[in-house]
């Protein structure tokens, strides 16, 4: 670590840990409700748990991206962050907005639009907050001594993510157009510009961890984000099959979203290829595990499982069933959650000068959480496929089908317990690392 201001990332990462923990709690509430144990219904009805679970995810991933940017950008730009104080202000205000939103959900204060549940007044605060963040990152790069592809890709990913938040606020009285614009935000985030951010962070990690030449890594970065946009932009069409939009989206969405796995496959081959190619034997094996894991699981979860129900003929039956939850869990875990856990695993030992992220515990956290998530995905898959056949193909009543698949939610909760154990160990290691040290470069091994 070359710059003091990189330590700003720590508070963002610590908040990530807290919000991730809370997100898991709300996941359990929903898992139990699906099994029929809904004792909390009067305090936390399902829709409140659902909105909280999803928005905590979005909040901690954004926190993670921001923390990663604050860590990476000074080093790439070769100068201190323009203002440490304002970075802390930006962090604190983001936390306030997120906490207000989550509390509001429990009092029926929201905008019931999937993934964008944050009430409108808070949306404006989010915009102001993100503008401040973009300003801090942007001016640091601008004033810096060098412009690297990695920092430029990361910056444009973050800038586009901020701009693409705006279509979600286009007012419309038509339910179809409401969905249409909503997917501009949600899809173009997760299957578009967030992948730029992901590519930028992965490149940084691969440059650091493998020692492969920057020119080679950044060349492949362009090719992969090129594929992402070639497939992902028009791939938005897979949300426009059955919501009242023109029929041509079936063809356009089908063709382009079928190509989306290629971008993720490219990302996986790229990460593994660079790791094999690199002669550097970096001591932080744990960070390398999460980096490679991220690339591989994002291909399986986002690429392969997304493809499994993206063709319109299949999606006609799976649209609006638990099959979507199956794909969603592993996709977010692989592509974005693991990415943030990777950058934390890499940067934390450097910031704190203490390495609690190596050894048995870190391996345990990595494997347990991943096996747990794979098992959760299988439980969702079994219940989702059963639901599709019983409800959509045979015409059985919704609630009758839900009772048939209840047992799979028991499996889900067991798998989630395993996942939670892994995450628990990770968070424990995070806490044991302590807070960042005053001096720079206390642990040269981990650079």
């Amino acid at each position, binding site marked *: 670590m070359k710059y003091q201001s990189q330590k700003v990332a720590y508070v963002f990462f610590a908040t990530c840990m807290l919000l991730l923990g809370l997100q898991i709690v709300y996941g359990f509430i929903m898992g139990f409700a699906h099994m029929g144990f809904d004792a909390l219904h009067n305090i936390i009805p399902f829709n409140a748990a659902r909105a909280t679970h999803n928005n905590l995810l979005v909040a901690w991933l954004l926190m993670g991206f921001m923390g990663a940017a604050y860590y990476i950008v000074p080093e790439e730009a070769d100068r201190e962050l323009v203002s440490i104080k304002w970075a802390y202000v930006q962090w604190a205000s983001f936390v306030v907005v997120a906490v207000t939103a989550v509390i509001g959900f429990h009092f029926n204060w929201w905008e019931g639009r999937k993934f964008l549940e944050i009430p409108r007044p808070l949306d404006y605060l989010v915009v102001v907050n993100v503008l401040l963040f973009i300003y801090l990152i942007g001016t640091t790069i601008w004033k810096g001594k060098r412009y690297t592809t990695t920092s430029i890709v990361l910056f444009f990913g973050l800038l586009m993510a901020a701009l693409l938040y705006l279509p979600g606020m286009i007012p419309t009285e*038509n339910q179809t157009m409401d969905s249409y614009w909503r997917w501009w935000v949600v899809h173009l985030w997760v299957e578009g510009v967030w992948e730029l951010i992901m590519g930028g962070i992965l490149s940084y990690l691969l440059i650091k961890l493998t020692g492969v030449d920057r020119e080679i890594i950044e060349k492949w970065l362009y090719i992969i984000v*090129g594929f992402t946009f070639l497939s992902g932009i028009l791939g938005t069409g897979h949300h426009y099959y059955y919501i009242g*939009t023109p029929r041509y989206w079936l063809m356009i969405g089908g063709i382009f979203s079928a190509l989306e796995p290629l971008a993720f496959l490219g990302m996986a081959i790229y990460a593994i290829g660079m790791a094999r190619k690199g002669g550097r034997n970096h001591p932080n094996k744990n960070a390398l595990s999460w980096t490679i894991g991220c690339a591989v699981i994002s291909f399986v979860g986002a690429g392969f499982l997304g493809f499994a129900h993206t063709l319109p003929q299949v999606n*006609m039956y799976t649209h609006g069933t638990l099959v979507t939850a199956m794909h969603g869990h592993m996709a977010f875990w692989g592509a974005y959650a693991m990415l943030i856990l990777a950058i934390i695993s890499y940067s934390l030992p450097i910031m704190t000068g203490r390495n609690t992220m190596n050894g048995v515990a870190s391996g345990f956290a990595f494997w347990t959480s991943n096996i747990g998530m794979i098992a959760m995905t299988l439980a969702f898959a079994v219940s989702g496929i059963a639901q599709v056949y019983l409800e959509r193909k045979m015409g059985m009543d919704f609630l009758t089908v839900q009772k048939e698949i209840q047992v799979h939610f028991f499996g889900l909760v067991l798998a989630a317990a395993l996942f939670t154990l892994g995450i628990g160990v990770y968070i424990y290691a995070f806490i044991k690392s302590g807070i960042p040290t005053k001096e720079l470069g206390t642990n040269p091994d981990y650079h």
Partner: protein
Amino acid sequence: MLSKSAARTFFLVGTFVCFFAFILLTLDTVRRVPKQTNADQITDSVKLGKKLWEDNNCMGCHTLYGEGAYYAPELTKVYSRRGDAFIRAMLTDPESMYPGERKMVQYHFTDEELDALVNFFKYTDGVDLNGFPPEPDLNTNTVVDESGEVAAIGTRPKVFNQMCLACHALQGQGGAIGPSLDGVGSRMERKDIYNWLKDPISVKKDSMMPKLPLSDEDLTELSTFLSLVKE
């Protein structure tokens, strides 16, 4: 081998072309959607219904056009499936409609709001969703009924499909919350069925079945139909 600047060109050109195509398609979609979604039928009441749908995060449990959460039923076509009266009764007192089942939050809607939600569902019912939701194509319930044609799907009263099948099954179709109605005509007289439907609690004190919003014509039609559903 590809140079870095060639890779950058590939990225920039590809992204620009796709984004441009996406903008053009969006302009075309914005132009076509009003006709496909009967935008002329979006009255003030429908707008209020949509607002209530969002303000109460209905999509946090239900799906509409297949979008939302997977905890409660898909509400696309709910208007034709369950009808006006059932929707109102459900929104007014969800727990009595599905006793002991998965719970829905009880909202205290005014009459105007109930109208708005019903109108919203009625509006969404007519939107052309390119064939969604699909017709169940593996449905094997084509058993010829012993009691003659009364139990055939075509001759059932509409209100039977909308209300009764929400909880009860006939010939294997319908809900599993109340007992099956197969052969109910052999167990109960028409008059008893009529009284039961009119007010279940007055016949059996601990009945779980709610008093449904049925008109006199509905009661006559249903009790006649059910009395003919013999073993």
